[in-house]
């Protein structure tokens, strides 16, 4: 069976050995050949010495979700050898460093073994000890390129881009590439039945990780103050912001920064700083993951009640507690939606691609200021840290920042009576002032204690209830402002539906395709935000049975839907994966088929 542009390659490496850039080279060269590709790092919470994997899925059909079953394994890690050999699908290939022979007991009859003496080649051809180690990676990329029929020119171009300014490194890299390629040509039959063929399927798409795209979105949205505390998997979001800001946000005359970044002492301080900066009229955000969000609860309650805009990104990882810091999950939904003690609700945005990370990051600053409340963008490790094929990033130059209801000096001058928490327009959103706007008008006392419309301290029950109800009214207003869901059908064609969100979309779309090919058409909706828009409610009302696909144990989105829309729980069926790896289409189909055979 020909397997052109449809297979999975996994690299088994030791972390800290420089394999990441070689593996990226491999994936990107296939992308440059116009073939859809997705790449995922599977790495430990460790710096050096432990096993790490990199998985590349090549898919002519553009399926970018994870797929179980490895067709080709490239193994340079003796620690995980046994596991790596056993994880190859029957009929697949196992490429290894044959400098030392494999243990006979590990061998299997149903897969092919291809030995390339990586270490021997590098010891012979290179003198520098660091190069001997590093070029092993390039040698195996060369070997794989010949086996899979990857165009060497694409890899060589990528190498010259990668080492621009350090040209001395290009020649030995290209040499290493050909050493691997030539070894295959001289010793094995090539190419394999698994191979690539040039296509024109990636169009104008780009390859970028969600964190970098979100960081760039914050630069475009005018964020100036960034506070953060290091935590996997959100750290690279702030470094993404920093890298782009250093290039795009220096004052051209003085060279000084039109932004400031503070690494805080903890997540409490990180969100506190972001709130302080927003209170004072700058756009500010912080990024974190589950453990950080737990710590930020107190401040989120303050920002909700005192009505201070703030943008927070939660790049979710597997919890609870420290959990699995380098594994993906969508398990902070309920905590994010209701963060803090007392009655609180927060606006959530849930992107699924890097382009959406960019767009929603930018939109969240407008929304936070329009609504004067925290906006939490929920991504996950898979989206944040892995390179994804994505539509290009777009910015409309006609767009202006919407700062919401902020009174300027003239408006304050002409205002007879102003109260910070007066709902003048009936939409639940009051008018705010920024410190130092006017010499004698607009000053007020911001507080997390109960207050009246003039921001005065008040423990009067009627006042408290009035303010709390107005906050609900504001949340109702938010419904029409947050991104509407995506539908996969122009009109309903089934009484069954599926709901998914965030990175679950990749596997869910693939599953829908496969089920559709098998004559099983189901309607689908991708939720992008909370509070739920009316469209979400209508979709659920017009279907009898709905599968809610998510990556956590407790079906948190399902709970949120049931709780907020008062839906009969029996109508919503859980489809879950929470093992820390991205959900797959196979698993979704399996669970839907299973629940079809048992009565609801």
């Amino acid at each position, binding site marked *: 069976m020909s397997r052109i542009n449809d297979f999975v390659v996994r690299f088994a490496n030791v972390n800290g050995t420089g394999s990441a850039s070689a593996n990226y080279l491999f994936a990107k060269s296939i992308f440059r050949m116009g073939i859809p590709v997705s790449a995922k790092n599977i790495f430990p919470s460790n710096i050096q010495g432990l096993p790490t994997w990199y998985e590349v899925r090549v898919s002519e059909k553009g399926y970018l979700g994870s797929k179980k079953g490895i067709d080709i394994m490239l193994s340079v890690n003796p620690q995980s050898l046994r596991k790596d050999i056993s994880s190859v699908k029957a009929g697949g290939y196992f490429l290894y460093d044959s400098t030392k022979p494999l243990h006979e007991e590990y061998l299997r009859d149903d897969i092919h073994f291809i030995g390339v003496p990586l270490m021997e080649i590098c010891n012979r051809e290179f003198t520098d000890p660091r190069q001997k180690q590093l070029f092993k990676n390039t040698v195996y990329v060369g070997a794989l390129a010949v086996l899979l029929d990857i165009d060497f020119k694409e890899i060589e171009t990528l190498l010259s881009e990668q080492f621009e300014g350090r040209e001395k490194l290009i020649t030995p890299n290209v040499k290493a590439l050909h050493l691997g390629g030539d070894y295959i040509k001289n010793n094995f039959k090539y190419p394999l039945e698994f191979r690539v063929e040039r296509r024109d399927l990636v169009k*104008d*798409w*780009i*390859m*970028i990780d969600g964190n970098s795209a979100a960081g*760039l979105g914050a*630069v*475009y*949205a*005018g964020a100036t*103050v960034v*506070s953060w505390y290091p935590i996997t998997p959100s750290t690279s979001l702030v470094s993404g912001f920093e890298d782009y800001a250093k290039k*795009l*946000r220096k004052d051209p005359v*003085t060279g*000084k*920064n*039109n932004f*400031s*970044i*503070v690494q*805080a*002492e*903890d997540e*409490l*301080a990180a969100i*506190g*700083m972001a*709130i*302080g*900066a927003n*209170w*004072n*009229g*700058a756009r*500010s955000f912080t990024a974190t993951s589950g453990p950080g969000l737990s710590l930020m609860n*107190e401040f989120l309650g*303050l920002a909700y009640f005192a009505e201070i805009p703030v943008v927070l990104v939660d790049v979710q990882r597997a919890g609870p507690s420290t959990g699995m810091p380098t594994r993906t999950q969508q398990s902070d939904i309920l905590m994010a939606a209701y963060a803090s003690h007392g009655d609180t609700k927060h606006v959530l945005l849930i992107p699924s691609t890097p382009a959406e990370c960019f767009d929603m990051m930018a939109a969240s600053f407008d929304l936070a200021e329009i609504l004067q409340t925290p906006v939490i963008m929920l991504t996950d490790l898979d989206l944040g840290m892995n390179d994804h094929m994505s539509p*290009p*990033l*777009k*910015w409309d*130059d006609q767009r202006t*920042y919407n700062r919401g209801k902020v009174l300027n000096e003239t408006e304050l001058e002409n205002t007879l009576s102003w109260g910070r928490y007066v709902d003048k327009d009936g939409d639940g959103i009051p008018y705010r002032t*920024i*410190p*130092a*706007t*006017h*010499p*004698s008008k607009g*000053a*007020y*006392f*911001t*507080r*997390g204690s109960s207050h009246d419309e003039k921001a*005065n*301290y*008040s423990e009067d029950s009627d006042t408290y209830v009035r303010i709390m109800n107005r906050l609900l009214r504001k949340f109702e207003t938010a419904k029409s402002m947050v991104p509407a869901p995506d539908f996969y059908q122009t009109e309903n064609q089934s009484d069954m539906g599926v709901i998914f969100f965030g990175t679950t979309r990749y596997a869910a779309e693939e599953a829908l395709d496969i089920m559709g090919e098998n004559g099983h058409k189901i309607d689908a909706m991708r939720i992008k935000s909370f509070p739920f828009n009316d469209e979400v409610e209508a979709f659920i009302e017009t279907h009898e049975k709905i599968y809610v696909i998510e990556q956590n144990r407790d079906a948190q989105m399902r709970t949120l839907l049931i709780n907020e829309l008062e839906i009969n729980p029996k109508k919503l069926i859980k489809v879950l994966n929470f093992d820390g790896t991205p959900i797959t289409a196979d698993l979704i189909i399996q669970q839907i088929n299973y629940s079809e055979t048992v009565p609801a």
Partner: protein
Amino acid sequence: MTYIRPQFQHPLLPKNSLGYNRKDYEGSLSTLCAGCGHDSISAAVVEACFELEIEPHKVAKLSGIGCSSKTPAYFLSNSHGFNSVHGRMPSVATGANLANRDLVYLGVSGDGDTASIGMGQFAHVVRRNLNMTYIVMNNGCYGLTKGQDSATADYGSISKAGQANMFEGIDLCGLAIELGATFVAQSFSGDKSQLIPLIKAALSHSGFALINVISPCVTFNNNPGSTKSYDYVREHNEALSSLDFVPVREEIVTEYNHTQVRFVEMHDGSMLKLNKLSPEWDPEDKLSIVIALNKAREKDEILTGLLYLDTKSIELNDLLNTTATPLNQLTEKELCPGSDVLEGINEGLR
């Protein structure tokens, strides 16, 4: 209940050069206990801001939670105030300051808010040298929750219930100096003549200025045996220096004795005239004040006055190389790189 002061102002009230009189720097009526030290500190803040001729709306006053943290409502009603969460005022002040480096930041905190729940944020705002004045209204106890010992209560100090504190008290001034504070002072709420010039000096300092003010709690910690009572502090107060604050505009004409009187120039050009009362101590010598503080502790003395000043202080915005224009005033033109740049970025990712 909300207390509102009468709006009437006597036409002959003296005004500063900006045209403001003292009343323009006041706030609403205090709801603290009668005789509370904190009210004297609020009054000193009003006086200092009036005399310094600060525009009230250019001040941002921030606090945490506790009796002390209520006080920003009792001064500068034309300034924006932010009563944040317990122990977290430093982070809010940091964000606010980064957003607009041109305002005057005045933080008010208590001993619980600073030395217990807020210890982490206090330590880090000190070492970042945030440009702010940080006043601790230190009464050694938790007033709002009825008088429990705080972390600054001295070892052996007797509580109202008659119990001796069995834990070591935290010396915020010594700690701040260790952490790299660039302006450290200690004072007593009952000593207005010392406190007002200290606040003026702190507000003029570019960088982090701590004033730890012993401020007796008349309700829960003013009993015999307490080391934070009015009587005890009066008896054990050992002033290191007396201080005059000389604004930029005034010429210094007084003759002075070089061994005792020191003039220190502040960042904004104003001068501090220090009358040194201890020959072994120099305000710019960190080691001398560390020794003085330790000696005083052994002798149960409370050293007051300006303790330490680093005139070479570089505040956070300058450390971060932030542009001179307040960040909250930058426009989309400066902030948004535009679609052409984005297309270039896309191209690099293909």
